[in-house]
């Protein structure tokens, strides 16, 4: 695919937002978006992990899975790589950047099971991105996810003072809000098609 890495990055943030167009990474999106502060922490952690795991998985795909002809095992390999990386990152951050660990590190275990991370690695392979494109796509997807959760957290903070029917409180109203947000983002989709 010949699309510049720069364009891909912005496309991943806005027009093809991983959360709002693919609805990936919903669990932590819904559960953590209660507070703006935590949302920011989780969003940064997701972005960081996305950049590194897409890079690692790209390398694993092109230098291990393809040569050995075991591409069909990529699901397992990608998941193991993501899990191991997150674990390693947690250990390092906790030791050398305690301040960062306390703002972001505690979200790391949540990320291991975040499907947006895994989804980005799979898209990268399906769409045949090169190494640079993959990193741009990973970073963009992460920022896009951060943007989405921050917006929802902001809206939910305002919703706290509003009257909402009992049955819709919490997850219900959050999903409706997310749907409306997704509609808005779909409006951008013609600007830079990437899929």
């Amino acid at each position, binding site marked *: 695919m010949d699309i510049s890495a720069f364009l891909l990055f912005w496309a991943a943030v806005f027009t093809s937002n991983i959360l709002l167009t693919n609805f990936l990474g919903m669990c932590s999106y819904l559960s953590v978006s209660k507070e703006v*502060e*935590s949302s920011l*922490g989780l969003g940064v952690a997701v972005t960081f992990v996305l950049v590194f795991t897409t890079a690692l998985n790209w390398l*694993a795909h092109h230098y*291990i899975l393809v040569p*050995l002809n*075991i591409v069909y*095992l990529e699901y*397992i*390999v990608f998941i*193991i*790589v993501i899990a*191991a990386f997150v*674990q*390693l990152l947690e*250990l*390092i951050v*906790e*030791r050398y950047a*305690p*301040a960062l660990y*306390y703002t972001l590190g*505690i979200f790391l275990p949540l990320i291991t099971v975040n499907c947006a991370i895994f989804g980005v690695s799979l898209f990268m392979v399906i769409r045949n991105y090169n190494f640079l494109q993959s990193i741009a796509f990973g970073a963009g997807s992460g920022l896009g996810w951060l943007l989405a959760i921050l917006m929802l957290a902001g809206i939910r903070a305002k919703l706290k003072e509003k009257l909402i029917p009992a049955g819709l409180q919490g997850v219900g109203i959050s999903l409706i809000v997310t749907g409306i947000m997704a509609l808005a983002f779909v409006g951008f989709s013609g600007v830079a098609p990437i899929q």
Partner: protein
Amino acid sequence: MLATIFKDIGALTAISGLLAVVLVLAERIFNNYGQCKININGKRDIEVKGGNNLLASLSDKQIYLPSACGGRGSCGACKCKVLEGGGPLLPTEKPFLSKAELAAGVRLSCQIKVKSDIAVEIPDSIFNIRRFDATIAEIIDYTHDTKGITFVLEPGESIDFKAGQYVQLLTEPYAKVRQRVSRAYSISSKPEDKDRLQLIIRLVPEGICTTWVHQYLKVGDKVSFTGPYGDFYLRDTDADILFVAGGSGKAPIKSILEHLEVVGTQRKMTYFFGARTLKDLYLTEEMRALEKVFPDFHYEPVLSQPAPDDNWSGKTGYVMRHFPDVIRDPQNTEAYLCGSPGMIDAVIKALTGLGVAKDKIYYDSFG
């Protein structure tokens, strides 16, 4: 075909193996905090291996903060005050802490990792719960099925408890019993004796622990127990006191009275001990002697069915019917009860009927 399978499995195994090795090494390097010191209440230092959470580090040293979720940060029970070395407050703790607690430095011990020396404050009632090793110094037969047993702690050890509290005795395997059990018994000696304590233990038919105590233990044997536990203890007020006991329920009240003997009291106290016949009474001489120690204390054994040859001239029937004679002001009376649940139920009913406030009635109803 077979070769492909082996190659693919081999590749996958190699990848996971490699990552596992990396993680193991990383754990060794990055998660090694060496030995850390935990200072508790400014009194005691304990050495632990760094890297574990505070809750687990403390329980390794037999200090058990309450925890209902097992350290997953979802129950909020394991709070304790961290004076120094706890690191910044975590978002996972915040929802469980009130404004006052935040200001006081209260933290969730399961969320804090011990990475350096740390100073904490733990309520004495929890801090004092420990495991003790002791040697049996004396065994007294009080009645045909009740013994008083004195345990002396290891040299240098001491126990802090409130008169009225209990300990859990741990059994050793014996005869057909292959596993250890723990059973609760009230302490009957005074808290001022810090190097020893006495338990009054009544033989329970088919009881694993009481059978062990009654038939196998002898002076000089070594045993272990944990404690002290319980919120049945004397309240420090000026109100009149009514003690009511039955069976082995004498133990905590003996402890309270002996404690009062040391610290002295002017309170009006009456002690009813309900039993069936004369042979169920014990410690009568000791209680009579205490009547001379306190300015206003009366010991009243009450027999429900005195045998003809008991020549009983004391009070008869159930203890409840004698309450009106001794309660001079129900508003200003505290009651301390220890005995069977049937007795406790009946006594509470009688006392509230006489106007004693329910929250002034303290009892220990056999767990």
